[in-house]
């Protein structure tokens, strides 16, 4: 428990649940946070070849529904500035 959690009186059971949620995602998908970052970088590079995106706003997450996992990628497209000006 860090100082902030102590301050707001966070219970240890909540920490346990949050930590387990993350650990289980990684156990089930065999994917570490570092591997997910690497995947994100590859994805940004591949998509950028075809379409203009803002790399800083790309979000990649593993979501779970029951016992099944899915990879969710949220990739906002950059507004096509030229067309607007024209």
């Amino acid at each position, binding site marked *: 428990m860090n100082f902030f959690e102590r301050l707001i009186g966070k*219970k*240890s*059971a*909540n920490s*346990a*649940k949050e*930590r*387990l*949620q993350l*650990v*289980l995602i990684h*156990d*089930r998908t065999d994917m570490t946070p570092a591997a997910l970052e690497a995947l994100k970088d590859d994805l940004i590079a591949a998509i950028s070849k075809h379409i203009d995106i803002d790399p800083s706003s790309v979000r990649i997450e593993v979501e779970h529904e*029951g*016992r099944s996992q899915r990879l969710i990628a949220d990739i906002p497209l950059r507004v096509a500035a030229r067309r607007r000006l024209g």
Partner: protein
Amino acid sequence: MTAKVITVTSGKGGVGKTTTVANIAVALATDGKRVVCIDGDIGLRNLDVVMGLENRIVYDIVDVIEGRCRTRQAMIRDKRLPELFLIPAAQTRDKNAVSPSDMVRLCDELRPEVDWILIDSPAGIERGFRNSIAAADKILIVTNPEMSAVRDADRVIGLLEAEEKAAPSLIINRLNQNMVKRGDMLSVDDVYDLLRIEVIGIVPEDENVVVASNRGAPLAMEGKTQAGQAFRHIARRLNGEIVPFMDFESLSLWDRISKLAWRK
């Protein structure tokens, strides 16, 4: 009779598999069912002492598999319940003495003779675990409301999914209601939320479990201990009965859990 084979496993050691097997077996046998327990932990025999039958062992499971005795001779009859039997693990042999197909053959031989076959799996996910699940019709996963036990339970559930076994059910053992109320222990609902498999039993932490194993007389045999009652409820649910979860078994989410009660 065509026995149903139930395997109790957990991933992590020390969460209460052997206690669970002994108590469910006693509860089923008290109900007049014919029950055989098989200790699947070759090299680390334990079910015999929990059931209080350690002094009666002559032959063990490896003797049966290697043909040194008939299956009948390795079945130790319980002192108190004449319909309850134990096939003990070998203590001195290495765990490769038994294979998954040996277990399937042994269970097939026993099936016509009894109502229930309960297999106590060793901890871990290796050979002994593979042996124990090979013949299972139903798998029960025991966990504690605690980080590493829940994580290992999830790992085992994943392995069973990969093997395309029927969906396992969950027993949450050693729940300490006071700690849950204080917010210092995962609740039944938290554990269900994380693992997402049907809950078939909730067993409170109970000092009497140690006392019972000291005496070699499983709790479910008699008396009114909460843990003993929880184990008897699991046995009834296995029999297809719909048994509501008791106050100590559930939290505020009684309704949600009771919807999950196992139906045959």
